[in-house]
């Protein structure tokens, strides 16, 4: 006879803010971790029924399959503009975007910069895995110097292909930004820290304290041609030195709120 856990002993279950869709992400990809953290926060803050998510173009284009919230699917890079439209006509709703680095740091730089500059009261979850995942691993603005991708086969040459963009640092310079931090998903400790940051980002929005973004350093084993474990190591050893973890902007109002 199988033993059935009695409810009070449950220590881990599927978040209610998730649908029962099975994942389509590659083995070892941290998108699933990021999705789960968001769903757990929506559960814990009891936000599911008032939340509208905005999916990007990229691997997370089907993010709407996983969340039990209302969802819209934006054109490539335009999620912050769509989120602005949603939030401005539904100020009591919770609106978040989920964007990759091709979406946010390449084609969508105009939208993200100006949403932050306006202090738009939305939450952005930014997945930085240093390449265009869905289209097959091309160079992204976040691709590290020397890193090989399908469109930088000899390694990113900064002389001709430019330098990686540190989005969190860049957006933190804007007066309108409220809460801008970078976390990583490469080990349990950092995942817990990432969850805490996502919680604060949503709290910022609930309290109307302005624009919040959590950049999450993530893995892409399939396109990096690494095993899942090697990918986690790559994040720790190669990405974090270029993209240091930290709090880049915490506005005085958010500091005062002691979230």
């Amino acid at each position, binding site marked *: 006879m199988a033993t059935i856990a009695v409810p009070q002993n449950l220590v881990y279950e599927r978040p209610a803010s998730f649908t029962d869709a099975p994942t389509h992400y590659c083995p070892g990809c941290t998108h699933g971790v990021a999705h789960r953290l968001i769903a757990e926060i929506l559960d814990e803050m009891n936000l599911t029924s008032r939340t*509208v998510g905005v999916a990007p173009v990229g691997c997370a*284009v089907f993010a709407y399959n996983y969340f039990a919230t209302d969802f819209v699917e934006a*054109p490539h890079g335009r999620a912050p503009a769509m989120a*602005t*439209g949603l939030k*401005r*006509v539904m100020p009591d*709703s919770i609106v978040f975007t989920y964007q990759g680095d091709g979406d946010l740091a390449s084609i969508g730089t*105009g939208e993200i910069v100006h949403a932050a500059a306006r202090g738009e009261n939305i939450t952005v979850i930014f997945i930085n895995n240093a390449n265009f995942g869905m289209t097959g691993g091309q160079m992204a603005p976040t691709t590290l110097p020397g890193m090989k991708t399908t469109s930088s086969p000899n390694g990113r040459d900064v002389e001709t292909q430019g330098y990686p963009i540190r989005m969190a640092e860049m957006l933190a310079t804007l007066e309108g930004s409220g809460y801008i931090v970078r976390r990583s998903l490469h080990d349990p400790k950092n995942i817990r820290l990432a969850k805490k940051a996502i919680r604060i980002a949503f709290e910022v929005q609930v309290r109307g304290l302005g624009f919040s973004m959590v950049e999450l350093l993530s893995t892409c084993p399939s396109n990096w041609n690494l095993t899942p474990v090697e990918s986690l190591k790559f994040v720790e050893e190669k990405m974090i030195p270029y993209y240091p973890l930290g709090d880049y902007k915490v506005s005085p109002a958010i500091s005062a709120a002691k979230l």
Partner: protein
Amino acid sequence: MARELWEGNQAIAEAAIRSGLEAYFGYPITPQNEILEWMSRRMPELGRAFVQAEAELGAINMVYGAACAGARVMTSSSSPGISLMQEGLSYIAGTEIPMLLINVMRGGPGLGNIAPSQGDYNQICKGGGHGDYHPLVLAPASVQEAVDLVPVAFDLAEKYLTIACVLLDGSIGQMMEPVELPPMREVKRKEFPWATSGAKDRARHVLTSIYLEPNDEEKTNLRLLRRWQEIQAKEIRFKEYYLDQAEVVVIGFGTAGRIALSAVRAARAQGIQVGLFRPVTVSPFPHERVAEIAAQAKALLVVEMNSGQMLEDVRLAVNGRIPIEFYGRLGGVVPFPDEILSEIQRVSKKTPQMVDDPAKAWLKRMDAAIK
């Protein structure tokens, strides 16, 4: 309500506000800036949403977001700005949600100029963005007609879950005319069964334009097509002037149609049997009515402020039954009534002849006239 003197762009903006507009998103571009400026003052004072976006790309996607929420929403722009909005317009069409676009055309292509033009007829009437879809396009010829069409366009957009566009040019946008504005109606969000307003006490709503399975995309395209066919069957609008026993019928929309009316009146005063047909819906185009007119008249004269873009629709409707002549001015040049009167006189005097391409014959005459 009393008639007051209003500038076209401002009157259109105020008409939209009085029609229950909840949110406006835009970006400055001449000759429609007065819409953005009017909204920037009026919307906040009424507690409604207004954002001057970072670009037309941002503006149209803010419209997209607000439309997903089920809000009555609009933007406005002019030719180069409309080009930038095509991406968002295609997504909005593919998501099957309503919005209003005010499209104030100027001379092009490229940066062109800020003078009145009808050079973007094909762009807006034939889709513009990628994929199989048709915006519903209404073309007023006066400030009053523009004001009257704004609430109509909102209602049609929401009825058919489509993009509705009021298409005008810089002259209607910036001229002042006496108009009667509609009374202020209260803002009341419709309970759309698809709106992404938060999944409280209902199943969640997902709005997207992605259908990875081709069979699903085909079904979506067919759904759009059937809705379009219903619009074609029920929503055709046009104005007719002096068509009774008219041997020559002038066809023109918007400003060109309005100027042509002056020419037609002058020609009538000279005893020429001429009338005017002015499409108000240019998309869908009144093909059937034009075919009926072609069965009565001896010749048609199409007048446009472009190189003959609507002319193609007229030719399709007439299908070679009677001769068609064309007269166009381009690049922001507005024809004088006298020019069109000369064309009416020329067409009415000669025995109308069938030509392969009316625009070619016109171009020869233009070459001789413009040195």
